[in-house]
């Protein structure tokens, strides 16, 4: 890693204190820890329940459009800016471009993250772009690019899906022409268990191979979906699983997205009515009190 001279640097060989925690739970123990006997998770929801979602648009005053999403402890903020010319490009492009950046705040994960984007963040940026591109009418702004920045303030699992949903809202808030909103959901798979909207602990469990059991499946699937046209704009899977597991997950994820979609719509509706009301009161004021001297 090259030395970053533009930031203040800490010592080189610093380690997270979580490495020295005494417990070294086995995989099975961890699984028992996360799921109770009656198939309930640690926070009380069932395996196929989504966490409660809070969404808000118009959170960044300087941006053209912005949104904030909270799924329990997972917090993501996203902002979208005005189209600008594509830098370092000389030839004409018929379709506009999306520039997406996905970033974890240094303090958002269990381990401290460097300021420079690592491979995982770059991959997430790519997935973010892939999932948004099909939903945006890019022919409306040829030769221009729209910047989309997502920042994870706290990662308690499913951060990428939250960022995609949030970015979809922010794009709509920025009045970028779109075919449909984009919503996303994450599914964690470990053995026979399928965790919808996994928390950070469940995600780390899904990243390790289950002990000798009937099924070796484990991994994480994130899917972005546009319900109006029934289009899956992205499908990203990692880990190891058989094809039946992948195919059955598609339906689970689609259903989860169908549940999130009306929430996004309501959030947008709320922001629109708010703007509309504000406009009305402003107009009233204008007529009554504003006079300009020439």
């Amino acid at each position, binding site marked *: 890693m090259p030395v*970053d001279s*533009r*930031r*203040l*640097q*800490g*010592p080189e*060989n*610093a*380690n*997270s*204190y*979580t490495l*020295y*925690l*005494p417990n070294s739970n086995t995989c099975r123990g961890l699984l028992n820890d996360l799921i109770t006997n009656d198939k309930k998770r640690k926070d009380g929801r069932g395996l196929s329940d989504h966490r409660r979602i809070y969404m808000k648009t118009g*959170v*960044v*005053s*300087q*941006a*053209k459009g912005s949104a904030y999403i909270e799924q329990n*402890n997972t*917090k993501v*903020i*996203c*902002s979208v*800016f*005005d189209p600008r010319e594509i830098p370092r490009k000389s030839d004409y492009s018929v379709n506009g471009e999306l*520039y997406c*950046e996905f*970033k974890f*705040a*240094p*303090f*958002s*994960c*269990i381990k*401290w993250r460097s*300021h420079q984007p690592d491979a995982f963040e770059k991959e997430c940026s790519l997935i973010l772009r892939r999932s948004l591109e099909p939903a945006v009418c890019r022919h409306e702004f040829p030769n221009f690019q729209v*910047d989309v*920045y*997502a*920042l994870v*303030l*706290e*990662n*308690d699992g499913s951060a990428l899906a939250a960022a995609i949903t949030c970015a979809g809202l922010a794009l709509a808030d920025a009045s970028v022409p779109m075919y449909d909103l984009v919503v996303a959901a994450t599914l964690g798979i470990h053995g026979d268990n399928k965790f919808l909207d996994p928390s950070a602990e469940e995600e780390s469990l899904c990243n390790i191979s289950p002990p000798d059991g009937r099924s070796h499946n484990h991994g994480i699937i994130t899917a972005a979906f546009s319900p109006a046209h029934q289009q899956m704009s992205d499908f990203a899977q990692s880990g190891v699983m058989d094809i039946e597991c992948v195919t059955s997950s598609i339906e689970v994820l689609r259903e989860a997205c169908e549940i999130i979609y009306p929430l996004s719509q309501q959030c947008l509706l709320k922001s629109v009515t708010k703007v509309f009301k504000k406009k009305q009161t*402003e107009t009233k*004021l*204008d007529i009554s*009190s*504003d*006079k*300009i*001297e*020439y």
Partner: protein
Amino acid sequence: MRSRNNVLKPNFRIYAKTGILCLIYGQHGFRQIGYVVLMEPFGVAWKDHVIFLFNSHKSVHKRECNPFITLLILLQNFSSAPAQGVRPDGRSLQKFRPVSINVGSIKTAEGSAIVKIGNTVVVCGIKAELAAPKAEEPNRGYLVPNVELPPLCSPKFRPGPPSDQAQVSSNFIAETLAHSGCVDLTDLCIVPEHLAWVLHCDLICLDHDGSLLDACVIALVAALRTVKLPHVSYDVNTEATVVSTEKRNKLQVYNTPVATTYAIFDDEILLPDPTNEEETLSSGAVTVVIQGDMLCSVHKPGGSPLTESQLQECVSGALKRAEYINKLVNTAIKSLGT
């Protein structure tokens, strides 16, 4: 300015003072009004097209007519401006924007705070790591503050390495931390020469609407005051480290510095707590850091000069604000219930 001729024709008036030239022309009342061209006083060529909407009463309306045109009023430059003494966001000249503080909301960080000053939002998260102390300072830990101005917070910033402003801010925060002595670095040492805490204090601006340094300092101090470090036992002979998260110690914060930024207009007017628009139009800025009831440091990166009395004015204003902010931070931390 490109515009249709019939719009340009009817009326215009020149307000001119201290080099700022404004033309107003409009048609049929309020709605059509408002292309004002603002020229930078110091020969910088044309600034952005700026619209001024103002009226005989004290209210000012901000309206976006075009994405590339922002709207604001700069009252002090109009001798005959009717709405004298009111700033674009409706507050009076010497007033600060409302401040809200939220602490401990980020669970993954050892300490965290979110500070809002008007629209400006800064998040501070503090992560602790373990490392061996420096050989030349064997009984001191590390405190690594960094101010991040991601492109998310304002269209001024582009992705890539940190901007100049971010670097200047980081250095300012680091100096403020070091000079005010609000954290004793020897407290962060666990076993001299072997193990010490590294506190990464990352300040991320989520919305840049002026007075960034004020928000950063408040957020940093509030976050530091919520830091709780797990207990660590270290065996010097076997180099075995054991961390227990059940027992946590609070970090001692000795001082609570508070920064207050003033924007300077026309070498004479001082506007406290400027917004982003005011900052870009101002001819300079000064940041005063107060600690308790004492002056800690004054940060004035160039710009128009200040007289002694003006500086005095700033310091006394900042003193009053520091008291208020400290009260606010105290309540926020109490509400955390510790």
